[in-house]
């Protein structure tokens, strides 16, 4: 069978080229070429109307002592480590609750997923209103609970702005994790859950002793997916705070954007350097995660 197949594929290069060619061409022109160009550019100083000047590793040296960059890295890492955990934990709890045959399960599913579909621009506008000092729902709620002292300008103070943004992110993405967890919970063998029920295992015990270990691959996958996604976070920050106040919500993506298109430094080389470093960092994390988790999976079986 396989010999027959290989012989067949020999005469078929024109067909293969015709089928894969367009996608491959698009991939080379729109992904590979720009990536290589960015890495190449990071060794140059590129100002409009000037020829690009080769400056070697200077951009990278400058980056090492760029305080704003390190702040941005810190904020992005906090975001990428905290938000996925909150989203996955909340998503899993909700999934188990729906699985426990709560009435109206279908309706809840559809309602909870809807924030995922709303564009960041609209989400950002809506939430900056909810955070409004005078009439936003958050402060109005605090007033209603007689907690006037806790009122603040959530996006306007360096101490709270980043966390306020993370809450919005969690609001938007929990539904996504919930749906994936729900599908995974439904995939669990019925007997296991039933036998736990016989052993009089409580609701929380069931989650902790059965659901979490059995869903570990899915949960880890979601955490990694979330981590990589949050390392790129841009839209929400750019529309709600533009990295302010006092750099307190600056992320790597917004800093790249500012240095490339918003500040009048007019140098495209430096932001390319930041992008290259960040690309390498993400790549490293992904490789690390996959090897670590693959190792652990091996141990288990």
């Amino acid at each position, binding site marked *: 069978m396989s010999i027959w197949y*290989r012989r067949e*594929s020999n005469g078929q290069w024109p*067909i*293969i080229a*015709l*089928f*894969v060619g*367009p996608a*491959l061409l*698009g*991939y080379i*022109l*729109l992904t590979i070429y*720009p*990536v290589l*160009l*960015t890495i190449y550019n990071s060794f140059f100083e590129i100002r409009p109307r000037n020829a690009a000047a080769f400056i070697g590793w200077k951009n990278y040296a400058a980056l090492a002592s760029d305080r704003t960059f390190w702040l941005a890295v810190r904020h992005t890492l906090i975001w990428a480590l905290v938000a996925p955990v909150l989203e996955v934990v909340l998503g899993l709890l*909700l999934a188990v*609750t729906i699985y426990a045959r709560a009435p109206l399960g279908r309706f*809840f*599913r*559809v309602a909870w*997923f*809807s*924030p995922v*579909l*709303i*564009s*960041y*621009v*609209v989400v950002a*506008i*809506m*939430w900056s209103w909810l955070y409004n000092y005078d*009439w936003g729902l958050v402060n109005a709620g605090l007033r209603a609970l007689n907690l006037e002292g806790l009122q603040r300008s959530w996006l306007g103070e360096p101490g709270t702005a980043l966390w306020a943004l993370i809450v919005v992110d969690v*609001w938007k993405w*929990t539904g996504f994790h919930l*749906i*994936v967890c729900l*599908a*995974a919970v439904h995939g669990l063998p019925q007997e296991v859950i039933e036998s736990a029920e016989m052993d009089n295992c409580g*609701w929380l015990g069931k989650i902790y002793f059965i659901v979490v270990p059995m869903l570990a691959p899915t949960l880890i*996958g*979601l955490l990694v997916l979330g981590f990589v996604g949050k*390392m*790129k976070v*841009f*839209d929400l920050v*750019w*529309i709600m705070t533009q990295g302010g106040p006092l750099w307190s919500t600056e992320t*790597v*993506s917004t800093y790249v*954007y500012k240095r*490339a298109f918003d500040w009048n430094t007019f140098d*495209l080389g430096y932001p390319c350097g930041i*992008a290259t470093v*960040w*690309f390498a960092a*993400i*790549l490293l994390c992904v490789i690390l995660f996959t090897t670590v988790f693959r190792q652990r999976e091996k141990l288990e079986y």
Partner: protein
Amino acid sequence: MKQLSRLSVRSALFILLVLYTAYAIGPLIWLGSMSLRTTSEIDSSHYALPNTFHWWKFHEAWANSNYNNYFWNSVFVATTSVLVLVVIGAMAGYCLARYPFRGNRAVFFAIFSTIMLPPQITVISLFQILVKYGLFDTLTGLTLVYIGVQMPITLYILEGFFKRIPRDLFDAAKIDGYGDFEIFWRIGLPIAMPAVVTVMILNFILLWNEFLYAVVLITSDEKRTLPLGVQKFMGDQFSDIGMVATGAMISIIPVIIAYAFFSEKIIQGMTAGAVK
């Protein structure tokens, strides 16, 4: 007694679910109600429901604040990219799933791995490239970039689907004298329709909402897509909350309508990348 405690746990859970639902869709309902109220009505009471429905606000935003323009730009960019993506992606996915040629897996993983690229690694040089070829600040340029951005996930989903179709089916067609392209067109593609639709919905929603590439690659007002238009309107009419809400609603209504009809399909499509 046990029955009673079980019932109370049940109802506590249910209340929790209702609370979470209010948290998840409350803001959207609030936005919807503001889009039908005037700013002075909103200022007097921010969380009231509309007394009279001011539908004229939608017409006002559509006709006088350029929303018709933004809307059709978004329609053009998203639809064109989705169609091109699905044709190119289906051909490549079919071929990679069905023809075991040398380098097959290399091509697949090369394209698939770009799924985790941060957009910044391409956006600056795409800006330079588009400027160089006169495609900067054009809808064509943005469409091309979108095709590149969504190619990995498209290919991943379609290749996976084609791979699950039993090979006997294609062999039978071959014996019946079908050519390679005919087999793809008459047999592969129709069978893969569920995956094709999933991919189209997923790409459409992601591109309809896309912001970063658009904000870098589009500058003139008449070429703005909806996310850019809404953001600009927010900047210009900051205090006119009512109209900003109307504009925001215009940009999400198509998604909501699609969601009302195809909720299962959309949920499936959006999570397709995560469920293996």
